């Protein structure tokens, strides 16, 4: 098998707040391989964003602190790099697209100048004219109409969808090996999301960059991801290829998400919500953090005492962090009967 381009190993990130220590990322490990799209899914506050901010050295300190682990990128531990070295990696080898491009674009410079600047920082010999030409090329690639005149406009003169296109253009300007997209379409309407997804797919093809796609939208994951990481309470609870995750989930939280989800393509008998609410990361439940909401635990003590390790469930790289994941088959069938959703069925 090919080597991963990025490996997180036991990453721990905390925030010290007046209410206590927020365990935002709690021993998170996952890999991403060249050219693939890795979907990271989980409800808000599960640690998805803080994980990738840690990768890029963007955790505000204080209150934040990376308390442990490794982030291996092409064999180097990014956590050990100097600020300057990290800056070189960021933007050139690893690029990022955020939910709100206004936060990562400078309102006082034109869109074109910012993209050109990104090019020039990493290749000072390029020269202004060439940078402008390349920027116009990039804007064309991402479907910004009239790129020549749009070059000289400011971010606020772009619509939300156009800004996100420009953001993608900037992100791929230096042919990064890894693209991190954190909720890139969450703020957009569905028809505009469709446009941006098209552009994102095109940008991936163009650069062959590996992509980490963070979203709370299972639909987006199903359409875009090759493999999926499911996060809960700052931990990874399940990893697997996209078909396996959707058709044969082996963690009750993953199943709970699917049973909660109304479907565009089916009339469900009812939704089967996960009871209770997401945990506080200051005061995480003992043992398996999911146990107070879990349909599988049935009061068994080990769930309350031992943190379940992320373990292989079927020998295909599919891993789940549940003491009783072998009971999941029956749980899936039960949910199918209760809600009318087809997970394992004929759609495969």
């Amino acid at each position, binding site marked *: 098998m090919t080597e991963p381009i990025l490996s997180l190993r036991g990453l721990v990130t905390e925030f010290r707040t007046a209410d206590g220590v927020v365990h935002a990322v709690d021993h998170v490990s996952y890999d991403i391989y060249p050219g693939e799209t890795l979907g990271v899914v989980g409800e808000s506050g599960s640690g998805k964003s803080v994980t990738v901010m840690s990768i890029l050295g963007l955790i505000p300190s204080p209150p934040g602190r990376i308390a442990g682990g490794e982030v291996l990128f092409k064999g180097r531990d990014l956590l050990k790099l100097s600020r300057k070295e990290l800056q070189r990696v960021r933007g050139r080898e690893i690029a990022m697209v955020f939910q709100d491009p206004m936060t990562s674009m400078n309102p006082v410079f034109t869109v074109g100048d910012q993209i050109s600047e990104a090019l020039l920082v990493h290749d000072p010999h390029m020269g202004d004219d060439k940078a402008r030409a390349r920027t116009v090329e990039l804007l064309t690639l991402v479907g910004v109409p009239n790129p020549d005149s749009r070059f000289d406009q400011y971010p606020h003169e772009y619509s939300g*969808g156009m800004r996100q296109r420009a953001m993608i253009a900037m992100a791929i300007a230096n042919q990064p090996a890894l693209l991190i997209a954190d909720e890139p379409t969450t703020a957009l*309407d569905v028809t505009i999301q469709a*446009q941006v997804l098209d552009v994102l797919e095109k940008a991936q093809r163009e650069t062959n960059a590996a992509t980490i796609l963070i979203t*709370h939208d299972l639909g987006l994951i*199903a359409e875009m991801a090759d493999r999926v990481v499911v996060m809960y309470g700052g931990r990874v609870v399940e990893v697997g290829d996209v078909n396996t995750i959707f058709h044969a989930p082996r963690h009750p939280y993953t199943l709970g*998400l699917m049973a909660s989800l109304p479907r*565009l393509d089916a009339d469900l008998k*009812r939704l089967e919500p996960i009871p209770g609410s997401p945990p506080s990361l200051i005061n995480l439940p003992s043992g398996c953090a999911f146990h107070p909401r879990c349909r599988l635990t049935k009061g068994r003590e080990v769930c309350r005492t031992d943190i379940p390790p992320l373990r292989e469930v079927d020998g295909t790289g599919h891993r789940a962090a549940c003491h009783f994941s072998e009971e999941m088959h029956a749980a899936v069938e039960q949910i199918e009967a209760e809600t009318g959703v087809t997970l394992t069925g004929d759609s495969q």
Partner: protein
Amino acid sequence: MSTDAPERPGVPQESSLHERTPVGEEILRVTALTKHFPIRAGLTKRQVGKVHAVDGVEFELAAGETLGLVGESGCGKSTTGRTIVRLLDPTDGSIVFKGRDIAGYSRRQMREVRREMQIVFQDPYASLNPRITVREIVAEPLRIHGRYRGSHQGKDRVAELLTLVGLNPEHGNRFPHEFSGGQRQRIGIARALALNPQVLILDEPVSALDVSIQAQVINLLEELQDELGLAYVFIAHDLSVVRHISDRVAVMYLGKIVEIGERRAIYAEPTHPYTQALLSAVPISDPALRGKRERIVLEGDIPSPANPPSGCNFRTRCWKAEEICAEEDPALIDRFGHGHPSACHFAEPKAVIKAELNR
């Protein structure tokens, strides 16, 4: 508290306004509803134009049913909802509630209507007073309407309402910030139900919630509907949520309804190009469908409602548009005799969600 008896001429008899409309019978009918906001400029605040936020919306709602109102942001869903409950004054059109046109009702007349028709907002935090306890929040409409009679009866009613929406009545003395988003939405619903209304306008009630909590609130709304015979106008931009909860669905674009019909008809056989594009663009949470669906990608952005295109206002993004579309505003009419009107000169049934539906 003063009495809530109607004393002004023009106020409908309490007996008829507060009589329950039998399930299945029309309770609300909106006709040619229009709301324009003035655009002002300059020192004199001269009006230089208007935002066509709602432009001739028509639908009816039967007692006990759910009408989903769906469309992208800025298409006029909230303005429609707020105008119906008269938080905004309509520019034009009629709003017939239980047989009477309330479009021109005074504040005082609306007070009686509010007992029967309530609105719930997306952001419960913004709409709940942060400084009073949850018990007081829920009691407030009872007090305003003189229904918090005797401290016992009032307290019991509040406890009953909190229980009804799945909250522990013992937590009634807490403040809104002590509750999670989902719980706050339950508080908003309890307050809306205090006066035992028959219609709820729900403006994006679950849009801000995570999926597991969203499902809890959706189930609650369904249970309340069954138990209390409520009718809902359910406003949302999430087409999957709307499919799950609605009996009928209206799709809005730039202030107009472009297609309306039974839920199954809208999802299985959309006829308006905008509905088709919208449905085709929603990601479906089944990787087996990847690459098997056509994603209709519309060009360009939604035009400004301050300056909507002539004729069919969707024409600037429509792949079917021809000359007639710029000249003639297509009427919202049943074009195929299947009881499911659409406003397009070139309407045509087309399954876009799944090939299997294409029967």
